[in-house]
């Protein structure tokens, strides 16, 4: 067994970003280099971990050698590994983008401000990455609370980084909502410990029975996570926070941070509270998702700022994820719905990050981000507009793209189980998405006679946006591998094919 096969890559995905955070805090001049190197190192560690999981099935790592219930366990199954891979790949792209975005050349007239943003972006991003990786690997719900706070503080600080009034107000609101959500989650953890004397997900899955404690804990934890995940009607903090942040920060927030809360929600509903959740509760979450799709799309069709449009698109797309809950109640299609939802998360992450980076390029070039003022920008930024278009294709769900595969699986699940309402809703959502994507492209492709005064956009920034958009489309062609990975340790049994069960449910 080689070093590559036996090394504890799980722990390095958390320790490496923490070290990078320390180093970028101490060595400000070398921060961009250290940050990009750390993102690449993280990607390599995640790749090695993926190989381990593909070879050996779900991994469980008792930190400190203690094991549950006294110690904390790390767990890497198909879902965690896919989430880690998503963060790693998008992390590398956004890091490369940010290295150019925060450079002195792009500063305009505010060099001091740019240097400040550059100095603080990198350590904050490294802590964000550490929080994400720690969250995806944790099998201990109290440890999930700590990683949620790590994630929340770095996200809020990054959102406030632009420094102007709107960003500070949005960040303050985000922080208050985030703290409330975390406290509700923590109270749920405390209730579960009080009843069952353990905080491990797998152990609790075997012990939890329906009753006042588990209902209260489920309600509190779900409420807290819905707040942090910006699910309608608790989404109000997201559009201003994502729209007023610098472009690479918006990409990270929309693509990765909101997915983390949803990931925990999946773990809770499908593993821990498996015997407690009821069909009405699942349908309620589905209705919230439906409202999110409709409201978010409607707002995206209305607003006049490009980044605000993309942020409302995030609200709408997160609604699709909530459709998993009612769809998965039907055992026959549960695994299809599960796969569709996870794949949706992956495709949306790539597409949304690409869209925000492309929007950042357009705003950087034009000096503003009013949609109506972006006429003819294709001439100056063909690559960014192409990236926006490809990302839009994935968001709408047109073939071939990751979004298409994901929506196809969700539609298949809805139609096969006779839940026509959700199917029609998804189709309506796709039409609305086409509407707001076309809004932007209509202006971008307009012919103008007079050339606008445009700032130069570095090639690196355009290529990273394009790269992520191409990846979103490629996910439509290489779906087999990620879906195979997803089967490892999936808590939802595939009715059609026998999967490798992880243990007693």
């Amino acid at each position: 067994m080689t070093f590559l096969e036996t090394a504890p890559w799980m722990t390095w995905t958390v320790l490496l970003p923490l070290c990078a955070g320390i180093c970028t805090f101490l060595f400000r001049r070398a921060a961009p280099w250290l940050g990009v190197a750390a993102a690449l190192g993280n990607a390599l560690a995640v790749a090695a971990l993926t190989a381990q999981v593909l070879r050996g099935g779900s991994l469980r790592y008792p930190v400190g050698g203690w094991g549950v219930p006294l110690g904390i366990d790390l767990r890497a199954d198909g879902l965690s590994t896919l989430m880690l891979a998503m963060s790693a790949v998008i992390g590398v792209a956004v890091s490369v983008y940010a290295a150019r975005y925060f450079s002195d050349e792009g500063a305009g007239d505010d060099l001091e401000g740019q240097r400040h943003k550059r100095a603080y972006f990198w350590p904050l991003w490294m802590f964000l990455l550490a929080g994400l990786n720690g969250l995806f690997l944790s099998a201990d719900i109290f440890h999930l609370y700590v990683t949620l706070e790590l994630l929340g503080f770095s996200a809020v600080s990054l959102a406030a980084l632009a420094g102007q009034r709107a960003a500070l107000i949005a960040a303050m609101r985000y922080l208050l909502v985030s703290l409330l959500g975390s406290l509700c989650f923590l109270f749920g953890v405390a209730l579960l410990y009080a009843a069952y004397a353990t905080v491990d997900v797998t152990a609790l899955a075997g012990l939890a029975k329906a009753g006042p404690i588990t209902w209260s804990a489920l309600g509190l934890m779900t409420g807290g996570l819905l707040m942090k995940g910006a699910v309608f009607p608790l989404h109000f903090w997201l559009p201003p926070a994502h729209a007023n942040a610098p472009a690479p920060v918006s990409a990270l927030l929309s693509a990765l941070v909101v997915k983390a809360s949803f990931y925990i929600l999946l773990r809770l509903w499908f593993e821990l509270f498996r015997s407690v959740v009821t069909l009405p509760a699942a349908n309620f979450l589905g209705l919230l998702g439906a409202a999110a799709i409709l409201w978010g799309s409607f707002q995206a069709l209305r607003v006049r700022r490009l980044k605000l449009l993309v942020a409302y698109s995030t609200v709408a797309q997160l609604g699709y994820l909530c459709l998993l809950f009612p769809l998965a109640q039907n055992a026959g299609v549960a695994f299809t719905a599960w796969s569709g939802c996870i794949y949706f998360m992956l495709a949306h992450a790539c597409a949304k990050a690409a869209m925000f980076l492309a929007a950042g390029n357009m705003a950087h070039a034009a000096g503003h981000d009013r949609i109506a003022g972006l006429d003819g920008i294709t001439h100056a930024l063909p690559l960014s507009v192409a990236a926006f278009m490809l990302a839009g294709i994935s968001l709408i769900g047109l073939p071939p793209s990751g979004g298409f595969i994901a929506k196809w699986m969700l539609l298949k699940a809805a139609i096969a189980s006779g839940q026509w309402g959700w199917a029609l809703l998804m189709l309506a959502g796709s039409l609305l998405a086409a509407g707001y994507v076309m809004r932007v492209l209509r202006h971008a492709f307009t012919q103008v006679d007079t050339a606008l005064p445009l700032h130069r956009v570095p090639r690196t920034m355009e290529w990273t946006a394009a790269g992520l958009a191409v990846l979103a489309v490629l996910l439509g062609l290489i779906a087999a591998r990620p879906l195979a990975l997803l089967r490892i340790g999936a808590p939802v049994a595939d009715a059609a094919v026998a999967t490798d069960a992880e243990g007693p449910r």
Partner: protein
Amino acid sequence: MNLEPALFYALAGVGLFAIGLHALFAYAHLLRKILALNVMGGGVFLFLIAIASRAAGPVPDPVPHAMVLTGIVVSVCATGLALALANRVQATTGKMQLPDEGGGA
């Protein structure tokens, strides 16, 4: 009715959580909101300590105590960050309050 100390303090923790939650929504002043979050945190910690005292014998359950220690530190960090942000909001808007607008169009 025999209200053991552990149950009493656990209910008191719930009460603090509820009071803090109400104050968070009822007041517009940012400092009050931050204090409300602290009170809520205090309620959760009180609950954890209370359930730890249910252990028979002289030594309480140390794991909830460890959780409370971690929680207090995280809570202090949250308060520090929130206060700094609130200060900046006041510096740029003139009021220690979030303006009641939507996302803006």
